[in-house]
């Protein structure tokens, strides 16, 4: 539990992360994800409850736990006046590593993050994606047993995101346990073996992406798009065509096992959307079902 004055940011979450898995906290901004991450990272004392990280209590043995963690914060906090290589070196030294060890490790990480040709450049002018890769490389300098990633790809372009995901996959294959927060469903689906959906500081659901979709959504979704406002007028005409219908400002979502059949039936009833789309259910739909809201506002 985490309180800031009267505000309870995280309240009554109950999770166990298993060795070697990639675990996700999915939720909108303000759901309590970052507060949870900071508690796990041993930089934020909890206001109540129990927390065990790598078998230790962060409030008692914070530095000892942090020595074994890798942390990728939501906002990069690289030293932008140092070079790429110097950032890795200085950071590694804080973990009590010898100069020689850090120097070798830095080469390995530069290669991993595809930053070798930028090694001696200052950080400041690097692109957002490069800085992010450097932050991730830096978090690996102590060969962490557990890597915490807070919104790892927020603000990056699609290409940079895929490159980052690829790097994170490799880490997972090496047996590093990952904890990821994100408000992107595609990121959660890509990376996480198991996740919890958080909303308002509480856990709304828990499971693998596939389990959650199977439990809280249908196989397919039919999206009927209208001019904003027109969707409401069409709502009575589509009643009964799907297991469940959600109304968003510019569209109706029809949850059904067979989207094409539902679309044909809607056309038969004279519903004329601006556009229509049949797609597989995603975690976005799970979130909508659980909270009545969309993830990215």
């Amino acid at each position: 539990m985490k309180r800031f004055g009267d505000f309870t940011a995280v309240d009554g979450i109950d999770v166990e992360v298993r060795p070697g898995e990639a675990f996700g906290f999915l939720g909108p901004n303000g759901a309590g994800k970052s507060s949870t991450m900071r508690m796990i990272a041993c930089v934020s004392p909890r206001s109540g409850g129990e927390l065990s990280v790598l078998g230790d209590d962060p409030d008692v043995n914070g530095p000892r736990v942090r020595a074994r963690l890798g942390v990728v914060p939501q906002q990069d906090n690289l030293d932008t006046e140092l070079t790429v290589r110097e950032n890795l070196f200085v950071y590694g030294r804080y973990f009590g590593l010898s100069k020689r060890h850090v120097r070798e490790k830095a080469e390995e990480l530069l290669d991993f993050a595809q930053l070798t040709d930028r090694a001696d450049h200052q950080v400041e002018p690097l692109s957002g994606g490069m800085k992010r890769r450097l932050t991730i490389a830096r978090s690996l300098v102590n060969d962490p047993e557990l890597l915490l990633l807070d919104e790892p790809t927020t603000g990056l372009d699609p290409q940079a995101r895929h490159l980052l995901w690829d790097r994170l996959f490799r880490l997972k294959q090496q047996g590093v346990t990952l904890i990821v927060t994100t408000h992107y469903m595609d990121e959660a689906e890509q990376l996480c073996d198991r996740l919890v959906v958080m909303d308002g500081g509480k856990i709304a659901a828990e499971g693998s992406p596939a389990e959650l979709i199977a439990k809280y959504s249908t196989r397919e979704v039919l999206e009927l798009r209208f001019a904003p406002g027109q969707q409401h007028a069409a709502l009575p005409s589509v009643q009964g065509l799907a297991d469940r219908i959600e109304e968003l400002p510019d569209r109706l979502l029809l949850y059904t096992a067979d989207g094409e059949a539902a679309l044909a039936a809607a056309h038969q009833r004279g519903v004329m959307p601006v556009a229509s789309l049949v797609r597989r259910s995603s975690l976005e739909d799970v979130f909508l079902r659980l909270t009545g809201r969309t993830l990215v506002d």
Partner: protein
Amino acid sequence: MTVTVNPVAARSTGRVVGSVRASLLVVEGLWMWYRRNWRATVFSSVVTPILFLLSLGLGLGTQIRAGAVPGGSTYIAFLAPALLVSAAVQNAAMDSTYPILSAFKWQKTFWGIVSTPVTPGQILGGRFLWLAARLLFSGVAFMVVAAFFGGVQGPSVIVSLLVSVLAGLAFAAPIVAFAATIENEGQQFNLLFRFVVMPMTLFAGTFFPVSQLPVFVQPLAWITPLWHGTELSRGAAFGTLEVLPALGHLAYLLVWVVVGLVLARKYFRVRLTV
């Protein structure tokens, strides 16, 4: 609430180092920056005080009759040990304002460090060791030049140097504490420089004895760490220090250091572990 995180991957190579070592690692990080960027700071920290010394000590000094200054020495000899302290205090103030705020607010580098085994208190310790080292280095450079122009009386210059470092730290400690509490863009620092540092530089005994000030203004000079440092430094240079006043000045400066550091440590922890 129960959260359990139990990975069993290969053991991490990271380990916790002792407090002194951790602070020295913070110094190492700052040194890494400094050895490539020292040119950016050397003008304000070393060259400017030397220009003041030459202009006022040698230039203005020609217009000041020998014997008119207390102790009957040349003006440059009167000025050098005090300007040393004044420069240290100014450098300390500059190093303790925007650079600290930036590490919290803009660059957020402190947040990166506390994700490692290093603690907020150890970061603070490292910043202070680093500041002391820089003040000492700038002071030595200043005094070497001063000696060349007759501004140094003898080996007691070592005492003056140490005093200048202490006075700088005494002024810096509460400012660092203050900087750690600032959430906005740091406009307060401009007020600090304009209404505290600048008047203090001019009127706290560097260029003329405080006794020349109107009686009702003198107490303002007495509360500044600069005046106490100046009394000690100049007193050591001219061998006019008496034991009790000297202990009083030292104690006063130490109180500023200790109180400032205690507050700074608290605010560092509050800000970095919320």
